[in-house]
């Protein structure tokens, strides 16, 4: 049992990002409301961003700006900035994705008067 705790304690960020990711995936698959699907996609993408940010963190490391007192000899003194920079880009991408999705949903609502997927499909079949 202690090993299990140790395992979980050491890698809890991996477990938590995985759990969050699955929540997002569940929403995308199980929900029929298009906006909820969008939210699910957002949760899914955020989980991956959390994963990236968590791998850049180091215990006892400072911000990644060269400190004259510490110098550049010891890379362990600075957090890894690259994952955060990558995730800034990924956030921009996910904002753009959300924007396109919302625009499409707005148009769907204008055409069909609802954003419930099953109702829209029923209407399309009825025609």
């Amino acid at each position, binding site marked *: 049992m202690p090993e299990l705790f140790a395992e979980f304690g050491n890698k809890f960020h991996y477990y938590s990002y995985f759990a969050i990711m699955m929540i997002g*995936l569940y929403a995308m698959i199980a929900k029929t409301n298009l906006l909820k699907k969008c939210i699910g*996609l957002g949760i899914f993408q955020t989980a991956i961003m959390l994963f*990236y940010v968590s*791998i850049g963190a180091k215990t006892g490391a400072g911000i990644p700006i060269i400190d004259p007192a510490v110098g550049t000899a010891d890379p362990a003194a600075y957090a890894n900035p690259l*994952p955060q920079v990558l995730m800034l*880009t*990924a956030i921009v991408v996910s904002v753009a*994705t959300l924007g396109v999705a919302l625009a*499409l949903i707005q148009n769907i609502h204008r055409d069909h008067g609802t954003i419930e997927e099953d109702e829209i499909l029923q209407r399309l079949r009825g025609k």
Partner: protein
Amino acid sequence: MTAQLPILAIAPLLFGAFAVTAGRFLFRRANYAVASLALAASFTASVLLAIQILTQGTAIYFVGGWPPPIGISYVADPLSALMLAFVSGAALCTFLASKAEIETSYPLKNSAFYALFLLAVAGHMGIVITGDAFNLYVLIEVAALSGYAILAQGRERAMLSSLNYLFVGSLGASLYLLGMGYLYIMTGSLNMADLSGIIAQLAPGGLSGSTALAAAWGVILAGLFVKMGLFPFHSWLPGPISFSAAPAAALVAPLTTKVMAYVLVRMIISVFTPDAAWSLPAINTLVLLLATAAILYGSFCALAQRSLRKMLCFILLSEVGYMVGGAFLGNRAGLTGTIYHIFADLLMTLCLFLAASNVERGTGGRFSDMGGLFRRMPVTAAAMVMGGLSMIGVPPFCGFFSKWYLLSGAITAGSYAFAGALVLSSLVNAVLFFRIFEIGFFGTPADRASPSATSGEAAHRHPEPLPFFCDEMPAARLAPLCVVAASLVAMGLLTGEVVRLVVSAVLPPGLG
């Protein structure tokens, strides 16, 4: 000047997209010309780049002058240079052929369509040339987002199916990003050339030595398969492509699946190296099984369709199976077949979708509307015959040669189920296309049959057999189609050169 060609192939598209967006209020009428000019400039630069690379060897371009691993590099090797030329050429042909179609399908939104079209092409070209794994993710999203937007305009279901594509596509790209995160943890690099060296050090005996690397490969594959629509992840593909307006379908259908197959090949040969990529028998068996299922599923669903574009969508699905299967046969012939098929299938799909868009405009896209097609639209029909014969795999056309390589690879690998699926799918393709040819040759044109039945006067003036009445599309639509159809034969005749200069140049020499 020649050193800057890799960026010159992409920059005109970005500037063009900007100019078209900015000019939508000022010089609306010039926008089509500006966009065509941007595409033509990009095509010219790509062709010059391909010539330069094929004669002088691989060139690496540092974007902004920053060398890797800090900066992003664009790697123009024979494979990516030729692919760039194909992608930009395909986009140029589609754009030139569908001027009238764009103006009617996207009323009041021409400028937005031009800008999105250019961005989608720039995204696909960036995917092809980039040497940085994270940059690849961003460009996948650039290409996909503009794709969702242009596919959404169309018949009533287009919007919903495009949104569905957005959900599934973003999921696939996110999975790729996740897998890349695993690779980054293990290697600390995102540059593809760097990655392959570090992976070879970390797992000298194959990926089974490192769980994290094996997981990374598995997750990346899952993401790519979702993006390219391999069998169990295919459900997003037929909807948006068959409901959208014809120009968007003719752009996205040839590019998206083929460019993602190119990424798969790039991952195998440049990031993981074939030895490592094929070192997990469980993944190889599973992927080969999925590819076989994709071929069979696509072929049989295509048989059930009653409209031209829907049928082409399902053929597209089975072609994805060809490319993925060949990449996992684990031998040189299979991978050669995959790489060759990416080029061949791009041309074939482009030819068939351009022809289909002419047919839809001329007679209507349902099989029942297509009677007398050969009489009414001889040039379009001839191009469709060439595309169809190439899909079936008749010798002088390029479709034959890729099937030849894939089949010989499958037999070398002892994977008879895949070989059987390839042969069966060729036979089904023959049934599919000859059914259309039969309707086109012997069927009665729908709108000529009805007036003669209702009005005796008209029947008197047009006695059977019907006189020659040709309402072919204007030359502006036919010229790109003819060029593409002719290139099917040219590509087939140049197979030896393509394999020698492009495929052999990028495959590692020791590959069995």
